[in-house]
């Protein structure tokens, strides 16, 4: 392992209205990333309104006092910038990366919609349809398109904040009303619920002055508290079997993990890499390379800020292996891993791969700005981005074994057997 090769200079301040402003100067970057995180996501949606936080994100491009519908994106593109927004369970982010000469216009565009969103019935209806098409394109029209929904339903009851997908349900999207928009905006899109990261050729003084010039007039209102943690319990481990018109059957195993900022998460990420990431992972070597049970195995973590995150291990069984048999074979390897822990070589490789993944994530100003906002949200301090590489470097084999023993025990696993209707 090399020593952590980079540290970012960060300057952060809070405007009088509560907006947090973080500047990450990078004089040589090709553009400035403007990245806003609003502390609202699908976990904050009220009953009968799933999908609203994301629909609202679409509406933020539909015009404000001085900006016509669609003009925000068109303007950023026409200055050679990139622009988008996304919604997750825990936040909504709005971001553009623009040439330095376009920074002020980008901030003006953002500030205008945060100050004066203006939605017409026609724009609202068109975006409702666009979001329904997004749901069809990403989920309903895709093979395995309900895998995530089935996974979430195994872990959370419907009334849990994380018990539904961010995209929402068609029925709730149909029920969403223009009247809901103003209230949602008032409740959540407050300066004190928002943080702005500027990353690129801009000094801290310039960045703070520009943020104050464009966002300083937003009203000073108290932050809206989220009401998420601990209110509804997660579900006990369960086994679900479905049959679908897909090309291959899958064993999809999953576990409750701690919240995203829990100290065990670093060790758990490494554990999942060692177990199931790539051709030299444990499970690939023992179950794929030998041809004994699986053709492919992958691991992943779905992180949540305020309640259980989820670890997944997905396996595609060989033709003469049932999904139950593959699950049992994975559990058996997992028992051994929990018992013995990773080898020195396994841990060193996982750390090297983790470092490369981090470096890629930080290679663009767009990625870096978003990561800074993520660290700010998860750990309360944007500067914690500078600790992650050394946190990974310090994880020991014992840490990985202990975290796996606590969180990845076979008898705590949910099993989803996703069976192909006509296996090849």
């Amino acid at each position, binding site marked *: 392992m090399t020593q952590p090769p980079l540290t970012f200079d960060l300057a952060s301040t809070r405007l009088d209205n509560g907006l947090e402003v973080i500047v990450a100067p990078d004089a040589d970057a090709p553009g400035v990333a403007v990245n806003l995180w609003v502390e609202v996501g699908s976990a904050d949606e009220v009953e009968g309104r799933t999908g609203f936080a994301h629909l609202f994100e679409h509406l933020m491009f539909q015009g404000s006092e001085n900006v016509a519908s669609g003009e925000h994106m*068109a303007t950023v593109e026409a200055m050679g910038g990139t622009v988008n927004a996304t919604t997750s369970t825990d936040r909504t982010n709005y971001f553009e990366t623009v040439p330095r000469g376009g920074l002020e216009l980008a901030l003006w565009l953002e500030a205008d919609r945060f100050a004066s969103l203006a939605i017409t019935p026609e724009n609202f209806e*068109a975006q409702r349809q*666009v979001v329904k*098409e997004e749901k069809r394109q990403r989920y*309903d029209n895709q093979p395995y398109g309900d895998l995530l929904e089935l996974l979430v339903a195994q872990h959370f009851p419907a009334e849990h904040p994380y018990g539904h997908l961010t995209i929402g349900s068609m029925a709730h999207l149909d029920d969403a009303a223009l009247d809901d928009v103003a209230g949602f905006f008032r409740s959540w899109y407050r300066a004190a619920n928002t943080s702005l990261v500027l990353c690129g050729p801009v000094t801290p003084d310039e960045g703070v002055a520009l943020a104050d010039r464009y966002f300083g007039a937003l009203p000073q209102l108290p932050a809206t508290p989220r009401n998420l943690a601990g209110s509804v319990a997660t579900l006990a481990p369960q086994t679900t079997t479905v049959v679908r018109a897909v090309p291959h059957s899958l064993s999809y195993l999953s576990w409750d993990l701690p919240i995203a900022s829990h100290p065990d998460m670093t060790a758990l990420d490494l554990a999942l890499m060692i177990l199931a990431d790539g051709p030299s992972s444990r499970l690939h070597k023992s179950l794929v390379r030998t041809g004994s049970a699986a*053709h492919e195995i992958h691991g992943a973590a779905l992180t949540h800020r305020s309640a259980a995150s989820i670890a997944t291990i997905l396996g595609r069984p060989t033709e003469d292996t049932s999904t139950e048999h593959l699950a049992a074979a994975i559990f058996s390897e997992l028992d051994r891993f929990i018992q013995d822990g990773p080898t020195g070589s396994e841990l060193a490789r996982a750390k*090297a791969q983790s470092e490369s993944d981090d*470096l890629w994530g930080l290679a663009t100003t767009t990625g870096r700005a978003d990561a800074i906002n993520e660290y700010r949200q998860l750990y309360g301090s944007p500067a914690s981005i500078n600790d992650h590489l050394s946190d990974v470097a310090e994880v020991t084999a014992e840490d990985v074994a202990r975290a796996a023993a606590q969180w990845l025990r076979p008898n705590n696993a949910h099993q989803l057997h996703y069976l192909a209707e006509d296996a090849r």
Partner: protein
Amino acid sequence: MNRPTVTTDSAWQFPTPEITTLGNGLTLWYFAMPNQHMTSFNLMLPAPLAGEPASLEGVGTLALNASDEGTLRHPDGEITELLELQGATLSGTARFHYTTFGGTAPSTHLADTLPLFLEVLRQPAFAEQDITHHIEALTASFDSRLASPEASNRMAMRVALFGGDHREGRPAAGTPSTLLAITPDDVRAWHSAHFRPEGATLLVAGATAPDDSIRLLESWLGAPELKPDDSPADRQHPSVVVVDRPEAVQAVISVGLRTPTRTDPRWAGLRIAGHAIAGAFASRLNLELRERLGYTYGVGGGIAPGLREGLLTIGGSVRTEVAGDSVARILDGLRLDAPLTDAEVDDARAYLVAVAPLANETSSDITAQACALAAAGLDPSFLNEHFAALTRVTASEATAAWREVVRPEQLTVAVTGDAEKLTPALTALGLTPQVVDLRSWS
């Protein structure tokens, strides 16, 4: 608060590499990027899929995918572990005209990674169990693409544009019937014939120069044994094809055409027109089909450059009920009856020129772009000439270029969805849809 104006930064130039031709005929392009902590390297091999035996298609992709499973010196996954220990990953793509193979590593580990990469290039073991594993993986991947509405649409479009009798019309990674016929000896033969330094170009971008590895690179010897005929397919008659997915809730629509490429004097005009018509978020088609009508999550596309030809592909996914109307509107839009305005062309030009520094921010961006240029036999300075050409294009030139090249009667349409509903909707437009069965390749 007054709307701020945009100040224009000085024109950006694609970086100039240090170019070295080694004694073994390998050309090295190094792009110094001192702020990139991850280095990217990419080898452009003149190994065209055009040279694959028809009964063994997929062998070129197998030779890539299986090569880092083991080498003669480090068999049975040992080489993979050594690469992982460096934080390095390898990947490659075999194409009709050429093959690329490369990877990424932290810049501080480049000197330890390139010798491992060279070992993979020169002495892959191609053990039987690894070939068997990758044949299964490619076969499964073919089945997954058949099941995917977007991937099956692309497959149908290719065969309609290039013809099933031509290699470029058939799946690059082979089909189950050809894949299952491939033996380890076939893979070794392909590797031995094509993985040679002479005529290849290695592109490296990152904070560390590959100086320490030059002597090692020079010890790799040989020239490709064959120069396969990779001439383009005959023009196919334009057609309207439907891939049936019964009860699908959406239709994936694409409109395609083989076009001129970078060296055509109209190229800059075609790029600008494509961006204004379909490429931008604020493109004519996206504003109409997404923002005004709410038919789709997005329509996109444009004209992409290729080695001898370019390829126009424009489309998106729409709910089944409006598929016919969407196809009609896309075809109408591509006809460009209303010429492009000065404002549209100015915006498209501004985007294509000014986004270049962001689009080339990482080391991988640079090597991917440079690889495409090297494969086309173009100098890295081509891009700067292209940016200059973009600044000169007028609205009438862009309109004229598009109308000359994108002839409505020449367009091919592929739609993936519920054929029972799509066929009458397309017929009502005066089109003659044919349902195609891609499973015949299985």
